[in-house]
């Protein structure tokens, strides 16, 4: 059966160190984590290693395609990437030098779904909040609880 997998891509220590010496706008572009979704599964022999390798290679191609070949008039990022990536072909080793990728294998939750499931009988367990908007949200939950408990 098909399902969506989540991968988070982060800079390595080597990239962080490199970014300390470059333009802050470019550094921000390259240091922010990236979240990728990927459709996986089915009756397949594909392993975690295979899926991870695909992410790494496509990530490099995406950088090259969008920010080097397809660079805008502001080509500061292009210059930095050309220097970091070197000349194609790009490999997994190159990715591993500058980035790391983690597949999310934990239990995922949707806030709204959890809120819907728990709000009617649980909000009194939560302390008041000094943040006015969060406090108003807690009050709304408490009033829903009161209505629910007074219902016949």
């Amino acid at each position: 059966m098909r399902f969506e997998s989540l991968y988070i891509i982060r800079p390595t220590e080597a990239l962080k160190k490199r970014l300390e010496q470059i333009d802050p706008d470019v550094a921000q572009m390259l240091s922010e984590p990236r979240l990728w979704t990927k459709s996986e599964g089915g009756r397949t022999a594909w392993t975690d290693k295979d899926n991870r390798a695909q992410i790494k290679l496509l990530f490099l191609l995406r950088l090259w395609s969008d920010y080097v070949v397809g660079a805008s008039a502001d080509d500061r990022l292009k210059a930095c990437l050309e220097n970091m990536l070197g000349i194609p072909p790009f490999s997994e080793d190159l990715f591993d030098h500058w980035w790391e990728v983690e597949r999310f294998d934990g239990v995922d939750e949707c806030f709204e779904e959890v809120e819907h499931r728990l709000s009617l009988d649980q909000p009194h367990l939560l302390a008041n909040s000094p943040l006015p908007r969060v406090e108003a949200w807690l009050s709304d939950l408490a009033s829903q609880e009161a209505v629910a408990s007074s219902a016949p």
Partner: protein
Amino acid sequence: MPSASLPGELPSTGVVEFDRLMIGTEQYLRWVEKIESRGFLVQQRALTRGTACEIADRVVTVDPERFRYTDLLHESRHIRQIERAEEQGIDPFGEGRFATIRRAWFERGAYEYEQRLGRKFGFSRDYLGFLEERINHYWKRSYQQELRFSLAAQEHFGRLWR
């Protein structure tokens, strides 16, 4: 013998009957007719190397060059899992709580089913190893722990046939 012995492909079971390609056989036609009568759509197209079949929603996509009898049995198990989940009022393709674990649960069930077939019909040691690897691939430790520690998870998966 299909492409099972090529690098990257699904491994051979070691039993000719189970490695037999299905497309063009009477058995396959009957299978398609049967599951389409139950609200599934079967389509054929080439899939990526190492993949014989995919199910998304109620669409079953089969790779004609790869789809063997053992794959048909695996997918049949999924079809029944989907139907039985729906009978329990659970949307097998839905999102929300337990959705990810549920898909892993179904894969675990289908591969465990193959393990039972393998023991009965003498699948190769390599293939049995592949099945074990697949179960570990899908049935993550975090899912096992959720099931161990959450009453709600135990209740949900207690209702869900695999």
